[in-house]
Structures are given as structure tokens and as C-alpha cells.
């Protein structure tokens, strides 16, 4: 399983690096590993320790964003390599955002299930009766 994850990670990491080079923003490289998380059943929570790596051609104030929440911010930095605990239940796009709320780079972490799903999304909100 870990070997499979590494293979997927390397492939997507390379793909992103090519895209980043074409990016007009100053981020030259941005990656999160692993890029996929395998859970038993869809809907299970995935807890992983992610390695975040980025560098840019000039010093930046940026934050790493997950679902509009800032997981970590850096000030006046040209590069960073951090290890962070991350929790997700569905495929999630992480973003590097500058102080002007501009998205400089993104990367998706995908969730896949090994077993047929045991859970599904509710189609009404919990309190819709009221």
C-alpha cells in the first residue's frame, strides 16, 4: 500500500511541477505528499501527516488553505518545508494563498476507498424538519 502511495505521489508531484513552471505567479514549486489517501470506506475520515514543500522566486507572505481555513502561514519566506497533521473526508484541494487572497498554487489530495461504501452523503440537512 505504501509503495502504491509513493508511486502515485511521485507521478502527481511531477505533473504539478510542470504546471507550476507555467504559472505566472512567483511560486515555482508547491507539493503536498501524500497526494492520495486510502480509507476503508468512503466517508471514513482520513488522518495523515502531510509534507508541504514550496519555494518561490521572491519572498512572500502566504498561507496554506484547506476548505477556506488557514492551516499554516509563512511570512517573508522564499521556501518552506513543513510536516502538518491533516484530516479530510473527501477529496480536497489545498491552496497557497497570498495576503491579497490570491490563489498562487493548488494541489488536490484524493480519497479513495478499499471497500464498497458503507456511508453516503445525506441529501437533507439534519435539522430540515424545523
Amino acid at each position, binding site marked *: 500500500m505504501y509503495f502504491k502511495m509513493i508511486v502515485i505521489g511521485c507521478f502527481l508531484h511531477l505533473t504539478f511541477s510542470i504546471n507550476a513552471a507555467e504559472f505566472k505567479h512567483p511560486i515555482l514549486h508547491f507539493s503536498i505528499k501524500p497526494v492520495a489517501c486510502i480509507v*476503508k470506506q468512503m466517508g471514513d475520515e482520513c488522518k495523515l501527516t502531510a509534507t508541504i514543500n514550496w519555494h518561490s522566486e521572491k519572498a512572500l507572505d502566504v498561507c496554506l488553505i484547506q476548505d477556506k481555513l488557514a492551516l499554516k502561514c509563512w511570512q517573508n519566506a522564499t521556501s518552506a518545508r513543513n510536516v502538518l497533521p491533516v484530516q479530510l*473526508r473527501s477529496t480536497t484541494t489545498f491552496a497557497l494563498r497570498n495576503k491579497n487572497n490570491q490563489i498562487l498554487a493548488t494541489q488536490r489530495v484524493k480519497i479513495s476507498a478499499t471497500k464498497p461504501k458503507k456511508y*453516503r452523503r445525506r441529501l437533507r440537512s439534519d435539522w430540515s424538519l424545523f
Partner: protein
Amino acid sequence: MILSLPNALAETKIIGDAIEQKENYIAIDKIHFSIALGAGVKTNPLVGGDNIPLFIVPSLKYYGENFYFDNGDLGYSFFQNEQLTLSAVSRINSENAYFSRWHPKNIFIFSSASGVNVDSEQIPDAEPSEIPERIDVKNIHARRWAIDTGLQLNWFLSSRSQVKIQVLHDINGVYDGFNGRVEYFRQFSPIKSTPFTAQITIGFDWFSQSMVNYYYGINNKDNVDSALYYQSGSALNPYIKLHAGYPLSKQWTLFSAISYKALAASIKDSPIVEASNNITGFIGANYVF
């Protein structure tokens, strides 16, 4: 600086653990039943329609791989992925709840009052020789129950938020029209590091002209003075709902809920309507079986 992080640093692993509580997810092939106990009220905008006290509100849900029943919604999801679910859905039109005590939406709400109060007094200030401006709902032709069927799209923006779009048509020819709903709801944690959760829902209901006129229009079937006949156009009713909950245990959750719906002019101008909004409030505890 770390602005927001999970409370516990979990060990590195690729396989996530199944957890008991799954926000916005539901275990399939299992009946989910809960009862809310407390005190609340649902206002009735109709002339002569009593507000409905709320004491006991049950909730029943069942989801299969594709089929589902969720508190009156009967559906079949024929397309599902992580972002979208498209379903055929059928349900009893809830608009009749204002006209009938024995609508399924009210039937489990234990109260001493009816949605339509047969003992209500006549409209005050109406001289016997004058034509009243308003009509008591008990004096008009009974509205029938409509069974709506149509399509529903759920767009999951994140694990805690989604947009729902619904377009329905009555299949038993009661009002021979359409209604729709667009709704956004989002759960959030107002106080970090506590189990306190909240949810906000905003949206609007749209009723076609024929639906508005069936429920709120007045014509010769209603046996009232022709000066009170009323026909109007379609309606757009915006609403907002706020809910807050605090779990005490696996089974019990304290919660409060309030919702406000503004009625469109085509509804509130009807002679059988005396309020411009519909408000529901409830505070109590929910027990999950």
C-alpha cells in the same frame, strides 16, 4: 503561525479509522430514528389558522446505496460522486400543512390545537352587511394533498456544506404546476475545541402561478362573494434557518432551531393570508435510538 489545526496529532497513516460521528454522512442500509423533545411553535399565516405548538418531533431516515427515505422525501439517486448527487425525488407537498392538521408534516407533532381552528372566532371588525377583506380558511373549499415528484441535485461544496436544487411537479393533478427550491447550508463550529456545532441554511422556494392560485387563490369553488376572488402570479419565498446543537452523549443532543420565511406578495396579498411570514422556533433535546 498555525491558525487552525486538528486537536490531536494523529499518527501518520494512510488508512483512516471509521469513526462514530460522520458529519453529513449516513450509514446505509440502516434505519435511523430519533425524537426531539422540547417546546416550540410553527406559525400559520392563514386567517383562522392556529399556530402549531411543537412538543415531540420524530425523525426517520433510511438510505440504501441508491434508494433513500429522509423525513418524507422518497428518492432514488441515479448519479453519485464526491461532488454531485442527482436524484429522482417524491414527497407530499408541504404547503398543505397550513390548511390541514393531518398533513404528514404535522401528524407527529403532539398538540392540542389544529392547524385550522374550527372554533376560531369570526373576523373582527367585519360588519354583517359588509364584505370582509379576509376570509377564514375554514370557510373555503378544502385544498387537496399534492404529491410532488421531480429531480434534485445536491452539490457538495465541502464535507460540511452543500447546495441543493430541486424542481418538482405534482403528479396527481392537484394544482398542475411546478415548485422549486434552491438552498445552501453549512455546518460550522462557532467555538473551537468544543463539540458545539451550528448550521445556517439560506434559500428560497419558488411556486409556479398555478400552485399559488390553487392554494392561495379564491374562485367560485370557494363559495364566497365574488368580490373576494383572488388570482395571482408565481411566488418566490426566501428563508433562513439557524440551528445550534450541543451533544451531551452519543444519544442526547441539546439544540435550538429557528427559521424565518418571508412570503411573496402573491401569497400574502391573498384574502386567506394574514401574515407576511412563517416562523418556526424550537428548543429542546434530541434522542437518537
